[in-house]
């Protein structure tokens, strides 16, 4: 593999326009066998390459630093609706042509939006990379937004909302949890948006959003898999360098959420045969130095069949069918979520009492050395599994570039390995206090 300096020298030969010149940022080992390289085009587009020839496939991700945190009340859900619209026509390609070309090439194309980002990806046979680069570059600047497409896509999103939120118990509870736990920060509204807002979007809203956020200097492209690095960078240079950077990228901090001082409780009903409880404790940002210890605490409490709470809730006491914990991987402080699906006839207050007792025990005594080792081994296993495909690697890289801004997922794995029992104890004591949490109790609608 050519050195990055000699690579960009060759790519920049004869290139005079500033926007089209590559610069090399840095490189970093990615695990023991692979290397990640970071480049930047003159117009601000970041590109990260990761060559892995294990299979004849390539994954191409485009991560934009825009999500629901960049919306405002009354216009919630715009980032997500926009993600849908990106699959429509451009100035040079008709409606549906993007998907037709991708599918004919055997590529899977899709996208996702959350609070802090939106990403688009293609998992493709390796020979389809030039097509993928061409189509992604095209829709970054040439998207056509018209009334019929916006109208039909609003209907699709309204249906998606019904599917994932209105008629889904956990989806509904999660929406209510964040709306109650956050009072100032944009994390209080759902990424899919409130139904009224979805119905109200205009074509002009969408055009403004596109102009503001879809620019090369607000995006990172990740190429992972079996490809020729020089060819890929050359194609990116050719296809993206005519794009101008946006003059103003919205990077201003969002309102800080005031500290929560007492528990908030919300009760909802649904047609369900058993009660459920969803809890959210205010948690640190993903990149906070305390997060690895809190993640280990999560693993000790909820990770798999040997975890403390699975064993207690699902096996010993037979209170619940399932218990889960997760930390929202957000740029700003999010929530440590706990989901408990009770068995028929079991009471929510018993579940909460048991949860509090066990969390207090962890906060007082910390985990044993064996529990810690077990938790870290399990985290490592999950992590390695997520890296099996080119798409999995590209997703990890894109996420770290966008949310953390530096380092790789392997640095995080090292951070987990350095966690001590005392740090887990401190994290549990600091973050998992009832006064910092919001609780949503779900019970069956009265007949």
């Amino acid at each position: 593999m050519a050195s990055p300096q000699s690579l960009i020298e060759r790519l920049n030969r004869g290139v005079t326009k500033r926007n089209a010149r590559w610069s090399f940022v840095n490189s970093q080992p990615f695990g023991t066998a692979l290397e990640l390289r970071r480049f930047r085009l003159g117009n601000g587009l970041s590109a990260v390459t990761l060559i892995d020839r294990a299979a004849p496939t390539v994954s191409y991700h485009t991560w934009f630093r825009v999500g629901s945190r960049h919306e405002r009340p009354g216009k919630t859900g715009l980032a997500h609706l926009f993600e849908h619209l990106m699959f429509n026509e451009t100035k040079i390609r008709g409606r549906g042509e993007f998907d037709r070309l991708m599918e004919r090439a055997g590529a899977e194309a899709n996208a996702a939006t959350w609070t802090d980002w939106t990403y688009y990806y293609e998992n493709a046979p390796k020979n389809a990379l030039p097509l993928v680069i061409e189509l992604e570059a095209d829709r970054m600047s040439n998207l056509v937004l018209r009334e019929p497409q916006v109208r039909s896509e609003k209907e699709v999103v309204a249906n998606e909302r019904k599917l994932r939120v209105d008629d889904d118990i956990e989806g509904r509870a999660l929406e209510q949890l964040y709306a109650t736990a956050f009072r100032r920060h944009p994390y209080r509204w759902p990424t899919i948006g409130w139904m009224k807002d979805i119905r109200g979007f205009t074509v002009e809203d969408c055009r403004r959003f596109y102009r503001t956020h879809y620019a090369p200097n607000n995006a990172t492209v990740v190429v992972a898999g079996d490809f020729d690095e020089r060819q890929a960078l050359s194609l990116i240079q050719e296809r993206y360098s005519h794009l101008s950077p946006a003059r103003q990228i919205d990077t201003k901090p969002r309102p800080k959420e005031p500290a929560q001082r007492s528990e908030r409780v919300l009760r909802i009903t649904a047609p369900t045969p058993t009660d459920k409880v969803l809890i959210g404790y205010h948690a640190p940002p993903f990149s906070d130095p305390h997060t690895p210890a809190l993640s280990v605490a999560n693993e000790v409490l909820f990770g798999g069949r040997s975890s403390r709470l699975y064993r207690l809730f699902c096996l010993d006491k037979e209170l619940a069918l399932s218990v889960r914990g997760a930390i929202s991987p957000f740029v700003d402080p999010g929530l440590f979520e706990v989901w408990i699906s009770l068995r028929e006839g079991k009471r929510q207050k018993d579940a909460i009492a048991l949860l509090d007792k066990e969390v207090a025990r962890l906060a007082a005594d910390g985990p044993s050395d064996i529990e810690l080792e077990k938790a870290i081994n399990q985290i490592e296993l999950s992590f390695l599994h997520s890296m099996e495909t080119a798409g999995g690697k590209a997703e990890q890289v894109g996420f770290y570039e966008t949310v953390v801004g530096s380092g790789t997922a392997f640095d995080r794995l090292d951070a987990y390995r350095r966690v001590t029992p005392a740090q887990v104890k401190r994290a549990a004591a600091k973050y998992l206090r009832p006064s910092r949490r919001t609780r949503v109790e779900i019970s069956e609608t009265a007949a």
Partner: protein
Amino acid sequence: MTRATKARLLVESSNVLPLVDVEIAFRVGSLQDPIGKEGLAQLTGQLLRRGPHGISADSFEDRLANLGARLTVDTAMRTTRIRATTLRRNLEPLLDLVADMVWRPALRARDFAKLKRHAQASLLSRLDDDQTLGAIHLRERLFAGHPYGRSTSGSADSLRRINLRDAERFYTRYLETGAFIVGVSGDISDSEAESLVDAHFPRRTKKMNGKRDVPATHIRRGRHVVIVDKPERTQTQLYIGTLGARTHDRNLFPLIVSNTAFGGTFTGPLMQEVRAVRGWSYGAYSRLTHSDQRDAWYMWSAPSAEYSADCAALELELLDRWVENGLAKASLKFAQQYLINSHCFNRDTPSKRLESRLDIELLGVPRRYVERHDELVAQVTRKKANDATRARISPRDLVMVVVATAKDVKNAFEKLPGVSSVEVVPYRQP
């Protein structure tokens, strides 16, 4: 390099990540459940999963977790698969534990009683998931009275009838015999895998048991609507299905190509008409499953209650058009290109490559389906695809399952063309 080291061992090596997957696969599944004791195979698998004699179930879990390992026992209609995955450095101690579990399971009465209660609770929890609820009802109605219509998880009644002795007998008859195939994939060489498997899973029998003659499935004549009545639904889950094809059906590949063109991609007419043009559902697709006997073909979508019946009418119209008129030449070519070009994603990890090979051994999938996939797809002509569609998909004989609030949709579904019966079933009905 990839090769089968022995008939009962399959290895797929890759040293990209320090992970190894091990699969012990039996040709035994819920088809072996005695009538009235549906759920036995799954319950026995879960009881086995509680670990070997001599250590408690809790200690067994601790040891697995400490190795950075995960272990599942998955029961399907025709197979039981013990799947273990671990960090490479801990493979040998993991195999010690798994072999102990397979050869000397504890099968404790206390664990059995807990598992039965857990299985009953799991049945209840399915009622929360409308999509799963619809899929279960579709299979039950499509294969009414046939083993394919029986649930792998059983029912509240059938689980109640199963006792520990049943599970012990099931284990002795089908699992203890050692009639399984071992698959290993990941960071391991063929010779390492062979010696480890020989040491832990010595052959006990040459015969793979579990082969069972399943009677032919029969199509139910007419169009039948089943409304699974659940309160407060703003949206519906809509399944429209009929019989599809057998694994050994000469029409299988033509039908795979034809179905891909109709509802297997984002750009096919089903998704385009339902989602892209009308915005009626977040998704709409058709699926073809195949087995020893004709299995299911179905369409799925999730339209709002207000236009659920309109969406069903549209799908029926598209179905009629697909079967009557067949595919255009361009659609056929497009589907072939899609299937051939995307085939690399069926084998981009060692575990996926292993699964394909296990399917050949366990499910009787002809070897050429895997090894000559692209050629078989390319050989499908327009005539073959259209003839296969007409021969196998009957638009007149359909089961339509809609999970919805019945009062909001019943009248409209009764008016759909050709409907011969409409039945309303409460969602909590077993």
